[in-house]
């Protein structure tokens, strides 16, 4: 058991050391952590066998909520901005969820896509309210009343993101193992039996849906704050597809996989263009093809398999079977 815990702990330590060991990676890793949290939201839905093509909607709602709040309340505190943004994402998760949870499979995906594209169109076209295609600036919030310089602020954001990654990752893993998490996951295998246990599948899916919306919201607001600008592109359908892409690349259904996938994605996206011209999309596309066809359990699946072969224990897939 220690090996299984040692490696993740080592990785977390390495990531925590980045701002000092390799400051040029700090921004990239911070974006990867934010995107990872959002991808955990998508992973939650994958556990119920559902794929949303529009979860960038909540990613963008949180980012824009933070931007509007900071614009209307200059010098708003970081904690307030985060809370309001994530609350915005969660509430919209409930509102959209009430419609969407009645549907499954392709219909669930398409309806989510419709909602996100409507929000994208509003952001893109209603220039005087939403800043249009250029988006809105998200000025640096104050931290406990102190207006910080860029350097210290980004350090705080980095470690805050890391803390959120650990906290939310742990919570999601524990929730998966909890009764309501297990009930949520039965939607994937047998909704009929779920009905015959006296549970409404819609309400079960809604709990998971709101959690996934909130997680995407956390990712969105961190991304918005770290970048200092929020654009309609946050809600574009390709970003929703990207999140599903990363979830499966990392390991469909695995929380750790979401972060691993996000890190790989950001690294390839940033450094591929430096070395190999502008073909980062092709590299990632090719990488995903290999994963989907030869290792459908994703990078985490490969990691688990090799670990199991090394330590001789039976490979289980991800954290649920603690």
């Amino acid at each position, binding site marked *: 058991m220690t090996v299984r815990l040692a490696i993740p702990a080592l990785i977390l330590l390495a990531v925590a050391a980045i701002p000092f060991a390799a400051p040029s990676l700090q921004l990239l890793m911070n974006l990867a952590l934010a995107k990872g949290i959002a991808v955990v939201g998508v992973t939650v839905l994958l556990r119920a066998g559902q794929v949303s093509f529009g979860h960038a909607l909540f990613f963008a709602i949180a980012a824009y909520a933070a931007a509007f709040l900071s614009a209307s309340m200059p010098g708003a505190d970081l904690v307030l901005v985060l809370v309001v943004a994530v609350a915005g994402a969660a509430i919209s998760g409930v509102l959209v969820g009430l419609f969407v949870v009645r549907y499954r499979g392709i219909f669930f995906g398409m309806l989510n896509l419709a909602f996100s594209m409507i929000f994208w169109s509003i952001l893109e076209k209603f220039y005087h309210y939403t800043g249009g295609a250029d988006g809105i600036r998200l000025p640096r919030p104050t931290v406990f009343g102190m207006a910080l310089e860029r350097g210290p602020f980004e350090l705080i954001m980095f470690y805050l993101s890391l803390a959120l990654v650990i906290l939310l990752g742990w919570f999601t893993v524990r929730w998966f*193992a909890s009764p*309501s998490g297990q009930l949520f996951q039965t939607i994937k*295998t*047998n909704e009929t039996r779920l009905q*015959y246990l006296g549970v409404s599948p819609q309400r079960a899916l809604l709990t998971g849906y709101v959690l996934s919306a909130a997680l995407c919201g956390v990712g969105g607001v961190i991304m918005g704050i770290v970048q200092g600008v929020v654009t309609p592109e946050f809600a574009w359908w390709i970003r929703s597809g990207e999140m599903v892409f990363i979830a499966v690349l990392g390991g469909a259904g695995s929380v750790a996989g979401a972060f691993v996938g996000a890190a790989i994605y950001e690294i390839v996206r940033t450094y591929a263009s430096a070395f190999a011209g502008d073909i980062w999309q092709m590299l990632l596309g090719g990488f995903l093809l290999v994963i989907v066809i030869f290792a459908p359990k994703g990078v985490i699946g490969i990691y688990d398999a090799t670990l199991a072969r090394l330590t001789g224990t039976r490979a289980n897939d991800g954290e649920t079977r603690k």
Partner: protein
Amino acid sequence: MSEILLEARNLQIRFGGVIAADNVSLTIERGKNMAIIGPNGAGKTTFLNICTGWLKPAKGTVLFEGRDVTSLAPRRIVRLGVARAFQIPQLFTEHTALENLLISVSARERLRHPLQDMHTIRQRGEMLHLLDMVGCADVADRPVVELSEGQRKLIDIAVALALKPKLLLMDEPTSGVASSEKFKIMEILVKALAEAKVTSVFVEHDMGIVSRYADEVAVWAAGNVQMRGSPEEILQHPDVIRDVIGEAV
């Protein structure tokens, strides 16, 4: 004291040209295990679907403990104390046998704590005992997909029993199982039902099982209840022998 648990009154439903329920009326009394027999396509499963709210009848009402449940969704009827086992076991295919039961009891107890591990809930012992009652204690940690058809049938019934229902509706509990195992399963089943003090209704084709385990028998034909009575009366009745048993032999 025999008291009416479930009552169906002139249920009517048709699928296209086929009349699946033609003015069906039937009462189920507490403590009396009812067997439903009849040729395939007679409307037996349809009857169970209507009683559990899966299908809405065109006409007629369903009462459970005197309360009209015709228009309720299955989950609402289940909450009142009705549970169901299916002809094809409806199990959570990515979970183990024990987990299927733990999920069922979690639903029953409405456990909402987001961080408590399901394997550590208080009712775990009760579920292990239930597994033992249905004779599947040895496969508790095996994924259900790896179990035999018979075991899966029993787990399906155990999942229903985990809800501590008042009434258990079973659709051909021993079908798809080798005839040698049929009696073993029924033995386990009746013992479990007796211990859980649950009234059961089960659709069955094997007359041997019907005669040994049913307190009452209802004969279905062409979407309606032809006859009803004790196993002895029904099984000797010429029409039954010709229409039902003739087929079965």
